[in-house]
Protein backbone atom coordinates (compact mmCIF):
# COMPACT_ATOMS: atom_id res chain seq x y z
CA UNK A 1 0.00 0.00 0.00
CA UNK A 2 2.69 2.42 1.03
CA UNK A 3 4.78 1.43 -1.96
CA UNK A 4 1.88 2.14 -4.33
CA UNK A 5 1.37 5.60 -2.78
CA UNK A 6 5.09 6.35 -3.05
CA UNK A 7 5.17 5.26 -6.73
CA UNK A 8 2.06 7.36 -7.46
CA UNK A 9 3.53 10.52 -5.93
CA UNK A 10 6.87 10.02 -7.69
CA UNK A 11 4.99 9.39 -10.94
CA UNK A 12 2.92 12.57 -10.59
CA UNK A 13 6.03 14.63 -9.86
CA UNK A 14 7.82 13.09 -12.84
CA UNK A 15 4.89 13.78 -15.20
CA UNK A 16 4.57 17.38 -13.93
CA UNK A 17 8.24 18.01 -14.37
CA UNK A 18 8.22 16.58 -17.92
CA UNK A 19 5.18 18.69 -18.85
CA UNK A 20 6.64 21.86 -17.33
CA UNK A 21 9.96 21.29 -19.02
CA UNK A 22 8.24 20.75 -22.39
CA UNK A 23 6.14 23.91 -22.03
CA UNK A 24 9.02 25.85 -20.69
CA UNK A 25 11.30 24.92 -23.52
CA UNK A 26 8.58 25.58 -26.10
CA UNK A 27 7.94 29.04 -24.57
CA UNK A 28 11.65 29.73 -24.60
CA UNK A 29 11.93 28.61 -28.20
CA UNK A 30 8.90 30.77 -29.08
CA UNK A 31 10.48 33.72 -27.39
CA UNK A 32 13.71 33.03 -29.14
CA UNK A 33 11.88 32.75 -32.41
CA UNK A 34 10.04 35.99 -31.75
CA UNK A 35 13.10 37.82 -30.65
CA UNK A 36 14.94 36.26 -33.47
CA UNK A 37 12.37 37.48 -35.94
CA UNK A 38 12.39 41.02 -34.64
CA UNK A 39 16.09 41.18 -34.49
CA UNK A 40 16.89 39.33 -37.59
CA UNK A 41 14.43 40.94 -39.90
CA UNK A 42 15.00 44.56 -40.75
CA UNK A 43 12.15 46.86 -41.72
CA UNK A 44 13.05 46.27 -45.34
CA UNK A 45 12.78 42.53 -44.84
CA UNK A 46 16.49 41.88 -45.20
CA UNK A 47 18.29 39.79 -42.66
CA UNK A 48 20.73 41.80 -40.59
CA UNK A 49 23.45 39.67 -39.03
CA UNK A 50 25.13 42.66 -37.41
CA UNK A 51 22.23 43.26 -35.03
CA UNK A 52 22.90 39.97 -33.28
CA UNK A 53 26.61 40.70 -33.13
CA UNK A 54 26.00 44.21 -31.75
CA UNK A 55 23.66 42.94 -29.02
CA UNK A 56 26.07 40.18 -28.00
CA UNK A 57 29.03 42.50 -28.03
CA UNK A 58 27.10 45.09 -25.93
CA UNK A 59 26.36 42.50 -23.21
CA UNK A 60 29.85 41.14 -23.38
CA UNK A 61 31.37 44.57 -23.16
CA UNK A 62 29.13 45.39 -20.18
CA UNK A 63 30.26 42.29 -18.37
CA UNK A 64 33.80 42.99 -19.41
CA UNK A 65 33.51 46.54 -18.12
CA UNK A 66 32.03 45.32 -14.84
CA UNK A 67 34.87 42.84 -14.50
CA UNK A 68 37.37 45.60 -15.13
CA UNK A 69 35.96 47.47 -12.13
CA UNK A 70 36.23 44.47 -9.79
CA UNK A 71 39.16 43.84 -7.54
CA UNK A 72 39.89 40.56 -9.32
CA UNK A 73 40.79 42.37 -12.53
CA UNK A 74 42.89 45.06 -10.86
CA UNK A 75 44.72 42.87 -8.35
CA UNK A 76 48.47 42.79 -8.61
CA UNK A 77 50.95 40.66 -6.66
CA UNK A 78 51.66 43.79 -4.60
CA UNK A 79 48.05 43.97 -3.48
CA UNK A 80 48.07 40.33 -2.47
CA UNK A 81 51.30 40.78 -0.51
CA UNK A 82 49.92 43.79 1.33
CA UNK A 83 46.65 41.99 2.08
CA UNK A 84 48.69 39.19 3.60
CA UNK A 85 50.66 41.74 5.62
CA UNK A 86 47.39 43.21 6.92
CA UNK A 87 46.13 39.74 7.84
CA UNK A 88 49.45 39.04 9.57
CA UNK A 89 49.07 42.17 11.69
CA UNK A 90 45.56 41.13 12.69
CA UNK A 91 46.86 37.63 13.46
CA UNK A 92 49.67 39.01 15.65
CA UNK A 93 47.22 41.19 17.54
CA UNK A 94 44.67 38.43 18.16
CA UNK A 95 46.93 35.43 18.64
CA UNK A 96 49.84 36.98 20.55
CA UNK A 97 48.15 40.09 21.95
CA UNK A 98 50.88 42.33 20.47
CA UNK A 99 49.52 45.88 20.81
CA UNK A 100 46.03 44.88 19.62
CA UNK A 101 44.69 48.43 20.02
CA UNK A 102 47.12 49.52 17.32
CA UNK A 103 47.63 46.46 15.17
CA UNK A 104 43.94 45.72 14.61
CA UNK A 105 43.14 49.22 13.23
CA UNK A 106 46.38 49.25 11.22
CA UNK A 107 45.83 45.72 9.93
CA UNK A 108 42.28 46.49 8.85
CA UNK A 109 43.53 49.78 7.39
CA UNK A 110 46.05 47.83 5.29
CA UNK A 111 43.22 45.63 4.02
CA UNK A 112 41.08 48.68 3.19
CA UNK A 113 43.96 50.48 1.51
CA UNK A 114 44.92 47.50 -0.61
CA UNK A 115 41.61 46.39 -2.04
CA UNK A 116 42.40 46.77 -5.74
CA UNK A 117 40.09 49.01 -7.75
CA UNK A 118 39.97 50.57 -11.20
CA UNK A 119 42.39 53.45 -11.50
CA UNK A 120 43.55 55.40 -14.47
CA UNK A 121 45.10 58.79 -14.61
CA UNK A 122 41.96 60.78 -15.42
CA UNK A 123 39.27 58.86 -13.53
CA UNK A 124 38.83 59.62 -9.84
CA UNK A 125 36.36 57.24 -8.24
CA UNK A 126 37.05 58.86 -4.85
CA UNK A 127 37.84 55.51 -3.26
CA UNK A 128 41.53 55.39 -2.44
CA UNK A 129 43.21 57.23 0.38
CA UNK A 130 45.33 59.21 -2.09
CA UNK A 131 42.34 60.17 -4.29
CA UNK A 132 41.14 63.66 -3.61
CA UNK A 133 37.62 63.82 -2.21
CA UNK A 134 37.45 60.26 -0.88
CA UNK A 135 36.37 59.66 2.70
CA UNK A 136 39.69 58.06 3.51
CA UNK A 137 41.48 61.05 2.01
CA UNK A 138 39.60 63.38 4.35
CA UNK A 139 40.48 61.20 7.33
CA UNK A 140 44.10 61.04 6.16
CA UNK A 141 44.21 64.82 6.36
CA UNK A 142 44.67 64.46 10.12
CA UNK A 143 47.83 62.46 9.50
CA UNK A 144 49.46 64.57 6.81
CA UNK A 145 48.78 67.80 8.68
CA UNK A 146 49.98 66.33 11.98
CA UNK A 147 46.65 66.75 13.80
CA UNK A 148 46.22 63.28 15.29
CA UNK A 149 49.61 62.92 17.06
CA UNK A 150 49.17 65.92 19.40
CA UNK A 151 45.67 64.68 20.28
CA UNK A 152 47.12 61.27 21.11
CA UNK A 153 49.69 63.04 23.28
CA UNK A 154 46.88 64.84 25.10
CA UNK A 155 45.38 61.47 26.00
CA UNK A 156 48.77 60.04 26.98
CA UNK A 157 49.37 63.02 29.24
CA UNK A 158 45.99 62.55 30.88
CA UNK A 159 46.70 58.90 31.64
CA UNK A 160 50.37 59.13 32.67
CA UNK A 161 51.45 59.21 36.26
CA UNK A 162 54.81 60.94 36.45
CA UNK A 163 55.30 60.20 40.15
CA UNK A 164 57.90 57.48 39.54
CA UNK A 165 59.90 60.01 37.55
CA UNK A 166 59.50 62.79 40.12
CA UNK A 167 60.47 60.48 42.98
CA UNK A 168 63.71 59.43 41.29
CA UNK A 169 64.73 62.15 38.80
CA UNK A 170 68.11 60.57 38.00
CA UNK A 171 66.25 57.87 36.03
CA UNK A 172 65.25 60.65 33.65
CA UNK A 173 68.78 60.53 32.27
CA UNK A 174 68.20 56.96 31.04
CA UNK A 175 65.36 58.25 28.88
CA UNK A 176 67.75 60.82 27.45
CA UNK A 177 70.47 58.24 26.85
CA UNK A 178 68.17 55.94 24.90
CA UNK A 179 67.52 58.69 22.35
CA UNK A 180 70.94 57.90 20.92
CA UNK A 181 69.06 55.45 18.67
CA UNK A 182 67.35 58.35 16.90
CA UNK A 183 70.53 60.20 16.03
CA UNK A 184 72.64 57.17 15.09
CA UNK A 185 69.86 55.96 12.78
CA UNK A 186 69.67 59.47 11.32
CA UNK A 187 73.36 59.22 10.44
CA UNK A 188 72.85 55.66 9.17
CA UNK A 189 70.00 56.77 6.90
CA UNK A 190 72.15 59.57 5.49
CA UNK A 191 74.96 57.09 4.95
CA UNK A 192 72.86 54.81 2.77
CA UNK A 193 71.57 57.68 0.68
CA UNK A 194 68.40 59.18 2.14
CA UNK A 195 68.35 62.96 2.09
CA UNK A 196 68.40 65.03 5.28
CA UNK A 197 64.65 65.44 5.94
CA UNK A 198 63.95 61.79 5.11
CA UNK A 199 66.82 60.62 7.30
CA UNK A 200 65.47 62.68 10.18
CA UNK A 201 62.05 61.08 9.79
CA UNK A 202 63.53 57.59 9.67
CA UNK A 203 65.72 58.24 12.70
CA UNK A 204 62.74 59.09 14.88
CA UNK A 205 61.61 55.44 14.66
CA UNK A 206 64.25 54.90 17.36
CA UNK A 207 62.16 57.08 19.66
CA UNK A 208 59.72 54.13 19.76
CA UNK A 209 56.86 56.54 19.79
CA UNK A 210 54.28 56.12 17.01
CA UNK A 211 52.61 59.54 17.22
CA UNK A 212 55.99 61.32 17.29
CA UNK A 213 57.17 59.31 14.27
CA UNK A 214 54.00 60.20 12.34
CA UNK A 215 54.21 63.85 13.37
CA UNK A 216 57.82 64.21 12.28
CA UNK A 217 57.40 62.30 9.01
CA UNK A 218 54.30 64.37 8.18
CA UNK A 219 56.51 67.44 8.48
CA UNK A 220 59.72 66.17 6.90
CA UNK A 221 58.91 63.27 4.57
CA UNK A 222 55.49 64.11 3.16
CA UNK A 223 56.42 64.12 -0.51
CA UNK A 224 56.84 67.89 -0.66
CA UNK A 225 59.86 70.13 -0.97
CA UNK A 226 61.41 70.60 2.44
CA UNK A 227 64.13 73.20 2.84
CA UNK A 228 64.78 73.06 -0.90
CA UNK A 229 65.00 69.26 -1.01
CA UNK A 230 62.42 67.10 -2.78
CA UNK A 231 61.29 64.42 -0.36
CA UNK A 232 59.33 61.21 -0.84
CA UNK A 233 56.16 60.39 1.04
CA UNK A 234 57.46 58.03 3.72
CA UNK A 235 54.70 58.53 6.30
CA UNK A 236 53.22 55.06 5.72
CA UNK A 237 56.42 53.01 5.90
CA UNK A 238 57.76 54.99 8.87
CA UNK A 239 54.50 54.71 10.82
CA UNK A 240 54.18 51.01 10.08
CA UNK A 241 57.81 50.39 11.05
CA UNK A 242 57.43 52.37 14.28
CA UNK A 243 54.24 50.64 15.34
CA UNK A 244 55.48 47.19 14.26
CA UNK A 245 58.62 47.48 16.33
CA UNK A 246 56.65 48.89 19.25
CA UNK A 247 54.46 45.80 19.07
CA UNK A 248 57.57 43.64 18.84
CA UNK A 249 59.30 45.21 21.87
CA UNK A 250 58.83 41.96 23.88
CA UNK A 251 60.71 40.13 21.11
CA UNK A 252 63.42 42.68 20.29
CA UNK A 253 64.51 43.87 23.71
CA UNK A 254 65.09 40.76 25.90
CA UNK A 255 68.05 39.34 23.91
CA UNK A 256 69.81 42.73 23.99
CA UNK A 257 69.09 43.08 27.69
CA UNK A 258 70.59 39.66 28.40
CA UNK A 259 73.56 40.25 26.16
CA UNK A 260 74.59 43.53 27.76
CA UNK A 261 74.04 42.70 31.44
CA UNK A 262 75.48 40.14 33.81
CA UNK A 263 73.26 38.07 36.10
CA UNK A 264 74.64 40.00 39.07
CA UNK A 265 73.53 43.27 37.50
CA UNK A 266 70.10 41.91 36.68
CA UNK A 267 69.63 40.99 40.33
CA UNK A 268 70.25 44.51 41.62
CA UNK A 269 67.43 45.68 43.87
CA UNK A 270 66.55 49.32 43.74
CA UNK A 271 65.27 51.40 46.62
CA UNK A 272 61.47 51.68 46.57
CA UNK A 273 60.33 55.05 45.19
CA UNK A 274 59.23 57.63 47.76
CA UNK A 275 55.69 58.91 47.76
CA UNK A 276 55.23 62.10 45.77
CA UNK A 277 53.16 64.99 47.05
CA UNK A 278 50.22 66.42 45.13
CA UNK A 279 52.03 69.76 44.79
CA UNK A 280 55.00 68.13 43.07
CA UNK A 281 52.70 66.33 40.68
CA UNK A 282 51.00 69.60 39.77
CA UNK A 283 54.26 71.51 39.39
CA UNK A 284 55.84 68.88 37.13
CA UNK A 285 53.74 69.40 33.97
CA UNK A 286 53.89 73.19 34.27
CA UNK A 287 57.65 73.38 34.80
CA UNK A 288 58.22 70.56 32.31
CA UNK A 289 56.20 72.36 29.65
CA UNK A 290 57.93 75.69 30.12
CA UNK A 291 61.47 74.29 30.26
CA UNK A 292 61.23 71.81 27.39
CA UNK A 293 59.32 74.21 25.15
CA UNK A 294 61.91 76.92 25.77
CA UNK A 295 64.70 74.50 24.83
CA UNK A 296 62.91 73.06 21.81
CA UNK A 297 59.94 75.23 20.70
CA UNK A 298 59.32 73.03 17.64
CA UNK A 299 58.20 70.22 19.91
CA UNK A 300 55.47 72.44 21.37
CA UNK A 301 52.49 70.73 19.63
CA UNK A 302 53.53 67.40 21.14
CA UNK A 303 54.87 68.44 24.52
CA UNK A 304 52.27 71.16 24.96
CA UNK A 305 49.48 68.64 24.59
CA UNK A 306 51.29 66.01 26.69
CA UNK A 307 51.73 68.34 29.65
CA UNK A 308 48.30 69.89 29.13
CA UNK A 309 46.75 66.42 29.44
CA UNK A 310 48.80 65.82 32.59
CA UNK A 311 47.67 69.12 34.12
CA UNK A 312 44.07 68.07 33.46
CA UNK A 313 44.78 64.88 35.39
CA UNK A 314 46.79 66.28 38.28
CA UNK A 315 44.92 69.52 38.90
CA UNK A 316 42.11 67.47 40.39
CA UNK A 317 39.46 69.96 39.29
CA UNK A 318 39.03 68.90 35.67
CA UNK A 319 38.20 65.25 36.15
CA UNK A 320 35.64 65.23 33.33
CA UNK A 321 38.07 66.69 30.81
CA UNK A 322 40.82 64.32 31.91
CA UNK A 323 38.45 61.36 31.62
CA UNK A 324 37.46 62.38 28.10
CA UNK A 325 41.06 62.93 27.03
CA UNK A 326 42.30 59.58 28.37
CA UNK A 327 39.30 57.51 27.28
CA UNK A 328 36.98 58.66 24.51
CA UNK A 329 39.26 61.13 22.74
CA UNK A 330 42.35 58.96 22.60
CA UNK A 331 40.25 55.97 21.51
CA UNK A 332 38.66 57.91 18.66
CA UNK A 333 41.97 59.33 17.47
CA UNK A 334 43.67 55.93 17.77
CA UNK A 335 41.00 54.39 15.54
CA UNK A 336 41.33 57.14 12.93
CA UNK A 337 45.11 57.18 13.08
CA UNK A 338 45.44 53.40 12.89
CA UNK A 339 43.05 52.93 9.98
CA UNK A 340 44.40 55.81 7.92
CA UNK A 341 48.04 54.93 8.50
CA UNK A 342 47.23 51.34 7.57
CA UNK A 343 45.34 52.44 4.46
CA UNK A 344 48.20 54.70 3.42
CA UNK A 345 50.31 51.61 2.72
CA UNK A 346 48.93 51.11 -0.75
CA UNK A 347 51.03 48.52 -2.53
CA UNK A 348 52.21 50.92 -5.25
CA UNK A 349 53.39 53.43 -2.62
CA UNK A 350 54.59 51.02 0.04
CA UNK A 351 56.23 48.08 -1.68
CA UNK A 352 59.61 49.35 -2.74
CA UNK A 353 63.21 49.08 -1.72
CA UNK A 354 62.99 52.20 0.47
CA UNK A 355 60.37 50.62 2.72
CA UNK A 356 62.60 47.61 3.24
CA UNK A 357 65.51 49.91 4.10
CA UNK A 358 63.29 51.86 6.48
CA UNK A 359 62.34 48.61 8.24
CA UNK A 360 65.99 47.58 8.52
CA UNK A 361 66.97 51.01 9.87
CA UNK A 362 64.00 50.96 12.25
CA UNK A 363 65.10 47.64 13.73
CA UNK A 364 68.65 48.97 14.08
CA UNK A 365 67.29 52.09 15.73
CA UNK A 366 65.32 50.13 18.33
CA UNK A 367 68.28 47.95 19.15
CA UNK A 368 70.67 50.90 19.51
CA UNK A 369 68.17 52.79 21.68
CA UNK A 370 67.74 49.79 23.97
CA UNK A 371 71.49 49.29 24.19
CA UNK A 372 72.01 53.02 24.80
CA UNK A 373 69.71 53.02 27.84
CA UNK A 374 71.27 49.89 29.33
CA UNK A 375 74.84 51.02 28.80
CA UNK A 376 74.16 54.43 30.32
CA UNK A 377 72.69 52.76 33.42
CA UNK A 378 75.89 50.74 33.71
CA UNK A 379 77.98 53.90 33.39
CA UNK A 380 75.88 55.61 36.08
CA UNK A 381 76.45 52.63 38.36
CA UNK A 382 80.18 53.29 38.24
CA UNK A 383 79.59 56.55 40.11
CA UNK A 384 76.78 55.49 42.42
CA UNK A 385 77.40 54.17 45.94
CA UNK A 386 76.61 50.56 46.84
CA UNK A 387 72.98 50.18 47.85
CA UNK A 388 71.92 53.01 45.58
CA UNK A 389 72.74 51.42 42.25
CA UNK A 390 70.42 51.15 39.26
CA UNK A 391 69.39 47.83 37.78
CA UNK A 392 70.65 48.23 34.19
CA UNK A 393 67.56 46.44 32.85
CA UNK A 394 65.65 49.61 33.70
CA UNK A 395 67.69 51.46 31.08
CA UNK A 396 65.97 49.46 28.34
CA UNK A 397 62.72 51.23 29.19
CA UNK A 398 64.30 54.50 28.05
CA UNK A 399 62.96 53.83 24.57
CA UNK A 400 59.46 55.21 24.96
CA UNK A 401 57.05 52.43 23.85
CA UNK A 402 54.92 53.17 26.91
CA UNK A 403 54.24 50.94 28.77
CA UNK A 404 55.45 47.90 26.85
CA UNK A 405 59.16 48.35 27.39
CA UNK A 406 58.57 48.90 31.12
CA UNK A 407 56.57 45.68 31.16
CA UNK A 408 59.42 43.87 29.41
CA UNK A 409 61.82 45.14 32.09
CA UNK A 410 59.48 43.89 34.81
CA UNK A 411 59.20 40.46 33.16
CA UNK A 412 62.95 40.12 32.68
CA UNK A 413 63.58 41.23 36.27
CA UNK A 414 61.09 38.67 37.60
CA UNK A 415 62.74 35.92 35.56
CA UNK A 416 65.99 36.51 37.45
CA UNK A 417 64.41 37.17 40.85
CA UNK A 418 60.66 36.54 41.29
CA UNK A 419 60.51 39.06 44.13
CA UNK A 420 62.32 41.93 42.37
CA UNK A 421 59.63 44.18 40.89
CA UNK A 422 61.13 46.75 38.55
CA UNK A 423 57.96 48.08 36.94
CA UNK A 424 57.68 51.32 38.90
CA UNK A 425 61.37 52.07 38.42
CA UNK A 426 61.13 51.32 34.70
CA UNK A 427 58.19 53.68 34.26
CA UNK A 428 60.48 56.65 35.04
CA UNK A 429 62.82 56.28 32.04
CA UNK A 430 59.83 55.13 30.03
CA UNK A 431 57.91 58.40 30.39
CA UNK A 432 61.08 60.48 30.21
CA UNK A 433 61.72 58.68 26.91
CA UNK A 434 58.43 60.10 25.65
CA UNK A 435 59.57 63.61 26.59
CA UNK A 436 63.03 62.95 25.13
CA UNK A 437 61.74 61.66 21.79
CA UNK A 438 59.34 64.62 21.47
CA UNK A 439 62.21 67.04 22.19
CA UNK A 440 64.35 65.18 19.62
CA UNK A 441 61.54 65.48 17.05
CA UNK A 442 61.34 69.20 17.74
CA UNK A 443 65.10 69.61 17.32
CA UNK A 444 65.07 67.70 14.02
CA UNK A 445 62.22 69.88 12.76
CA UNK A 446 64.05 73.05 13.73
CA UNK A 447 67.21 71.86 11.92
CA UNK A 448 65.65 70.33 8.83
CA UNK A 449 62.28 71.97 8.15
Amino acid at each position, binding site marked *: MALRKFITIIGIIAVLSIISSCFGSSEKSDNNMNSGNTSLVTPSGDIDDNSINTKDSGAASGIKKFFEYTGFSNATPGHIIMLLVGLFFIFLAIKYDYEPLLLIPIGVGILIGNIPFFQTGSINLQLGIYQEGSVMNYLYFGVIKGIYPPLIFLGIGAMTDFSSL*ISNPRLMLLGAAAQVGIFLT*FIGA*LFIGFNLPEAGSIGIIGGADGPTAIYLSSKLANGGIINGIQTKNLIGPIAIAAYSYMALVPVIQPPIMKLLTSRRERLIRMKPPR*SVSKVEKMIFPIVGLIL*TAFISPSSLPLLGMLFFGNILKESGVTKRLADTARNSLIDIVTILLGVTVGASTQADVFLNSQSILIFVLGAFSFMVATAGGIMFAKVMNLFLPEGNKINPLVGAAGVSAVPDSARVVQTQGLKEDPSNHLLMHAMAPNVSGVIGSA*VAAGILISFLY
Partner: protein
Amino acid sequence: MNIIYNLGFSLPAVFNQGVVIAIVGYCTVFSALVVLYFVFTYLSKLLNLEIRNRLRREGKDEYAAVKDLQISGDESAAISMAIYLFHELHDVESNIITIKKIERAYSPWSSKIYSLRRYPN
Protein backbone atom coordinates in the same frame (compact mmCIF):
# COMPACT_ATOMS: atom_id res chain seq x y z
CA MET B 1 77.55 54.48 -1.11
CA ASN B 2 74.64 56.30 -2.57
CA ILE B 3 72.48 53.31 -3.44
CA ILE B 4 69.06 54.88 -3.67
CA TYR B 5 69.07 58.38 -4.92
CA ASN B 6 71.26 60.43 -7.07
CA LEU B 7 71.20 63.37 -4.73
CA GLY B 8 73.03 65.71 -7.02
CA PHE B 9 75.38 66.93 -4.32
CA SER B 10 78.33 65.34 -2.61
CA LEU B 11 77.46 62.86 0.09
CA PRO B 12 80.31 63.74 2.47
CA ALA B 13 79.02 67.32 2.82
CA VAL B 14 75.53 66.12 3.69
CA PHE B 15 76.96 63.42 5.88
CA ASN B 16 79.10 65.88 7.80
CA GLN B 17 76.11 68.17 8.18
CA GLY B 18 74.10 65.23 9.48
CA VAL B 19 76.77 64.31 12.00
CA VAL B 20 76.80 67.86 13.33
CA ILE B 21 72.98 67.89 13.56
CA ALA B 22 73.05 64.53 15.35
CA ILE B 23 75.63 65.62 17.91
CA VAL B 24 73.99 68.97 18.60
CA GLY B 25 70.53 67.37 18.66
CA TYR B 26 71.53 64.63 21.07
CA CYS B 27 73.26 67.10 23.36
CA THR B 28 70.15 69.28 23.35
CA VAL B 29 67.86 66.35 24.22
CA PHE B 30 70.23 65.38 27.00
CA SER B 31 70.49 68.93 28.31
CA ALA B 32 66.67 69.29 28.34
CA LEU B 33 66.32 66.23 30.54
CA VAL B 34 69.33 67.14 32.67
CA VAL B 35 67.71 70.50 33.41
CA LEU B 36 64.50 68.69 34.40
CA TYR B 37 66.57 66.33 36.57
CA PHE B 38 68.14 69.21 38.49
CA VAL B 39 64.85 71.08 38.82
CA PHE B 40 63.02 68.13 40.29
CA THR B 41 65.90 67.00 42.47
CA TYR B 42 66.01 70.40 44.14
CA LEU B 43 62.27 71.03 44.02
CA SER B 44 61.60 68.21 46.48
CA LYS B 45 64.30 69.62 48.80
CA LEU B 46 62.72 73.06 48.54
CA LEU B 47 59.32 71.65 49.39
CA ASN B 48 60.80 69.76 52.36
CA LEU B 49 62.31 73.00 53.61
CA GLU B 50 58.89 74.61 53.46
CA ILE B 51 57.35 71.68 55.37
CA ARG B 52 60.04 71.89 58.08
CA ASN B 53 59.44 75.63 58.49
CA ARG B 54 55.72 75.05 58.80
CA LEU B 55 56.27 72.32 61.41
CA ARG B 56 58.52 74.64 63.39
CA ARG B 57 55.94 77.42 63.26
CA GLU B 58 53.39 74.95 64.62
CA GLY B 59 55.76 74.06 67.44
CA LYS B 60 56.46 70.51 66.23
CA ASP B 61 60.24 70.83 66.35
CA GLU B 62 60.87 67.13 66.91
CA TYR B 63 59.10 66.29 63.63
CA ALA B 64 60.86 69.13 61.82
CA ALA B 65 64.22 67.69 62.87
CA VAL B 66 63.52 64.25 61.35
CA LYS B 67 66.18 63.52 58.75
CA ASP B 68 63.93 62.09 56.05
CA LEU B 69 60.50 63.62 55.81
CA GLN B 70 59.52 61.50 52.84
CA ILE B 71 57.87 58.16 53.34
CA SER B 72 58.42 55.29 50.97
CA GLY B 73 55.78 53.95 48.62
CA ASP B 74 55.59 50.76 50.72
CA GLU B 75 54.83 52.76 53.87
CA SER B 76 52.17 54.85 52.17
CA ALA B 77 50.63 51.68 50.73
CA ALA B 78 50.52 50.14 54.26
CA ILE B 79 48.92 53.28 55.70
CA SER B 80 46.36 53.40 52.88
CA MET B 81 45.49 49.75 53.45
CA ALA B 82 45.09 50.32 57.19
CA ILE B 83 42.76 53.28 56.63
CA TYR B 84 40.78 51.29 54.10
CA LEU B 85 40.40 48.33 56.44
CA PHE B 86 39.40 50.60 59.31
CA HIS B 87 36.70 52.38 57.33
CA GLU B 88 35.43 49.73 54.96
CA LEU B 89 35.62 46.32 56.53
CA HIS B 90 34.69 46.80 60.20
CA ASP B 91 30.94 46.97 60.63
CA VAL B 92 29.68 48.72 63.70
CA GLU B 93 27.26 46.27 65.33
CA SER B 94 25.02 46.74 68.38
CA ASN B 95 25.70 43.21 69.72
CA ILE B 96 22.05 43.04 70.89
CA ILE B 97 20.14 40.09 69.51
CA THR B 98 16.34 40.26 69.78
CA ILE B 99 13.36 38.42 68.36
CA LYS B 100 10.78 40.91 67.37
CA LYS B 101 7.20 39.83 67.82
CA ILE B 102 5.02 40.86 64.96
CA GLU B 103 1.29 41.09 65.56
CA ARG B 104 -1.18 41.00 62.77
CA ALA B 105 -4.93 41.60 63.04
CA TYR B 106 -7.11 38.58 62.19
CA SER B 107 -8.47 38.42 58.68
CA PRO B 108 -10.25 35.49 57.03
CA TRP B 109 -8.14 36.17 53.90
CA SER B 110 -5.01 35.15 55.68
CA SER B 111 -6.50 32.65 58.08
CA LYS B 112 -4.65 29.38 58.41
CA ILE B 113 -7.92 27.54 58.79
CA TYR B 114 -8.67 27.97 55.13
CA SER B 115 -5.24 27.20 53.89
CA LEU B 116 -4.66 23.96 55.83
CA ARG B 117 -6.11 20.63 54.80
CA ARG B 118 -8.57 19.43 57.34
CA TYR B 119 -9.18 15.79 57.86
CA PRO B 120 -12.82 14.75 57.67
CA ASN B 121 -14.47 14.16 61.01
